[in-house]
C-alpha cells in the first residue's frame, strides 16, 4: 500500500498535468487570436495555467524528495504516465471550441479550487487559494464569450452548438473520482468531485440558457484520463512539448 505522502504526490502531479496540458493548448493561440486584445487575454490565461502546473509539480517533486524537479515531471514522463482529464488535451479547435472548453473547465475549477482551499494538506490549499483568484477572472471571460457567441450571429451560435456537442462527452469523467482520489478524499486531502457535480450542471445550464444555447443530449461519454488512457492527441502534444528538452539529456536551460 502506498503511503499518504506518495499518494499526495501522485495527486499533485495529476493536478499539474491538468494545468500544464490545458495551458499548452491555450498557448497555441499566440498570434492566432481573432484580434490582438484576445491574443493578450488568452496569453494571460495560458500563463496562469502554466504557473499553476509549476506549483503542483514543484510540490509533487518536493514530496518525492529524490532531487527531481518540476521539469522532470513535465518533460520526462510519457503519454501513459500523464493523468490529466481528457478534456484538457483536445486540440484547440476554433475559438468557439476553445471557449466552450474554457467555460466547462472554469466552472469546474471555480468549485474544485474552492473545495481544495479546505484541504488538510496546507500546501495544496495554498496553491488553490492563489489559483482561485485567477479562475474567477477566467470564468468571467469564458461566460462573457459564451453569451457573445451564443447571442451574436447565426454562425457563432452554430459554432458554439457544434463545440458543445463535440466536448460534452468528455465532462463525465470530471465527476468520477478514482481509487487514489477516493482514498485522499477520505483523508480530507483531495476534492470529492461528486459533490460539485450538481452545482456544475446547474451553472452550466444557466449560462447556456442565458446564451440561448442548450446542454447537448449526447449519449456518449469518454473516460480514461486519470488512468493514462488518452486520446491520440496527447502523444502529439507531448512530442512537441518535450522535443528540445529530451534531445539534450541532463542539460540546463
Amino acid at each position, binding site marked *: 500500500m502506498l503511503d499518504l505522502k506518495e499518494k499526495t504526490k501522485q495527486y499533485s502531479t495529476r493536478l499539474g498535468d491538468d494545468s500544464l496540458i490545458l495551458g*499548452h493548448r491555450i*498557448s497555441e493561440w499566440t498570434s492566432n487570436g481573432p484580434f490582438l486584445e484576445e491574443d493578450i487575454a488568452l496569453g494571460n490565461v495560458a500563463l496562469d495555467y502554466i504557473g499553476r502546473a509549476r506549483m503542483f509539480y514543484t510540490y509533487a517533486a518536493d514530496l518525492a524528495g529524490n532531487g527531481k524537479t518540476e521539469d522532470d515531471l513535465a518533460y520526462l514522463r510519457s503519454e501513459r504516465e500523464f493523468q490529466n482529464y481528457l478534456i484538457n488535451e483536445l486540440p484547440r479547435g476554433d475559438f468557439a471550441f476553445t471557449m466552450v472548453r474554457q467555460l466547462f473547465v472554469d466552472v469546474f475549477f471555480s468549485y474544485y479550487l474552492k473545495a481544495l482551499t479546505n484541504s488538510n494538506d496546507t500546501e495544496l490549499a495554498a496553491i488553490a487559494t492563489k489559483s482561485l483568484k485567477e479562475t474567477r477572472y477566467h470564468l468571467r471571460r469564458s461566460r462573457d464569450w459564451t453569451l457573445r457567441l451564443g447571442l451574436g450571429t447565426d454562425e457563432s451560435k452554430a459554432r458554439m452548438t457544434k463545440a458543445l456537442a463535440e466536448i460534452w462527452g468528455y465532462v463525465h469523467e470530471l465527476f468520477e473520482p478514482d481509487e487514489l482520489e477516493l482514498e485522499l478524499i477520505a483523508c480530507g486531502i483531495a476534492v470529492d468531485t461528486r459533490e460539485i457535480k450538481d452545482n456544475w450542471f446547474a451553472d452550466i445550464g444557466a449560462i447556456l440558457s442565458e446564451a440561448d444555447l442548450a446542454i447537448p443530449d449526447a449519449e456518449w461519454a469518454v473516460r480514461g484520463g486519470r488512468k493514462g488512457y488518452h486520446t491520440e492527441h496527447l502523444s502529439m502534444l507531448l512530442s512537441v512539448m518535450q522535443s528540445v528538452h529530451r534531445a539534450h539529456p541532463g*542539460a540546463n536551460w
Partner: protein
Amino acid sequence: MNSLPSDLERAFQAKIDNEYKIEPKDWMPAGYRKNLIRQISQHAHSEVIGMQPEGHWITRAPSLRRKAVLLAKVQDEAGHGLYLYSATETMGITRAELIDALQTGQAKYASIFNYPTQTWGDIGTVGWLVDGAAICNQVSLQRTSYGPYARSMIRICKEESFHQRQGYQIMMELAKGTPEQKSMAQDSLNRFYWPSLMMFGPHDSESAHSAKSMKWKIKRETNDDLRQKFIDQTVPQIEFLGLEHPDKDLKWNEERGHYDAGEIDWEEFHNVINGNGHCNRQRISHHVAAHEEGAWVRDAQNAYNAKMKARRAEAA
C-alpha cells in the same frame, strides 16, 4: 517644392526646435503626419509580426520557467502592438486600415522577422540581439517629437529590458551548457548578428527618410550612430558568453572610442526586404489566416454589442 514656409510651418518647426511635443490636435504639415503614420505603424506591425518567430517556440520551450517567460514576453509584444496602433490612430487612421496596409504589403514591418527561428538558440539571440537593437532605437525615440509616440516608447522601454535579459539568460545557459548547447548558441549568434545590425537601416548617406525625420525630430539619432552604439555594447556581451564574434574585421578604434566594424552585406539586406527572405510570405499569410479565421468572432461580438444596446434602449 521650394515654396517659403507658411506661418503655421514656422510655428510648428519652432515648437519642435524648442523640444515641445506635438499633440494630436496640433497643426502639423502633411509630410510630418505621413512620415509618422509610416514609422509608427511599421513599428506596430513589427511588434505583431514579431510574435510569430518567437511564438513558434512557446510549445517547445525546454523548461517550464522558460515557457512561462517566453509566453509573457510574446504577450508583451502584443501589448506593444496595441499601444502603437492606438498611437497611430491618433493621427486619424483606423486599426482596420493599418492592418489592411500590412496585409496588402503597402506597409512594412521589421525585416528581421523574415528570418526563421530554427533552433531554441534563436529564442536566445532574438531576445538578446533583436530586442537589444530595438531597445537602442526605442530609447532614442522616447524623445521623439510626437507626444503619443514618445509616451508609448517610454512605456514600451520599461518592458523591453526584461525581453533582452530573458534572451541573454537563455544564451548564458547555452554557452555554459553541453557542447551541443554551446554550438547551438554560436550558430544562432552567427545567423542573427548581421541581420540585427541591419535593423538600424541603411547607412545615413543612403537613407531616404533620414534628413526630414531628423529635422522634425521624429528620429533623434541617425541609423549609423545607433548601430555603432549597439555594436559597441554587444562586444563585451559576446565575450562574456565566451562565444566567437561573428565579425572578423571588428577592431577597437582608440581615436574614435568605438569599434570599427566589417561591412554589412547590403545585398542580403535589400534581398530580404524585397521579399526574398525565408519567411516573408509565411508571416503575412499567417497574419491573414488568423485575421480571416477571427472574422466570425469579431462579427459575433459586434452583433452582440448591437443587440445589447438595442435592448438597453428598449428598457430605457
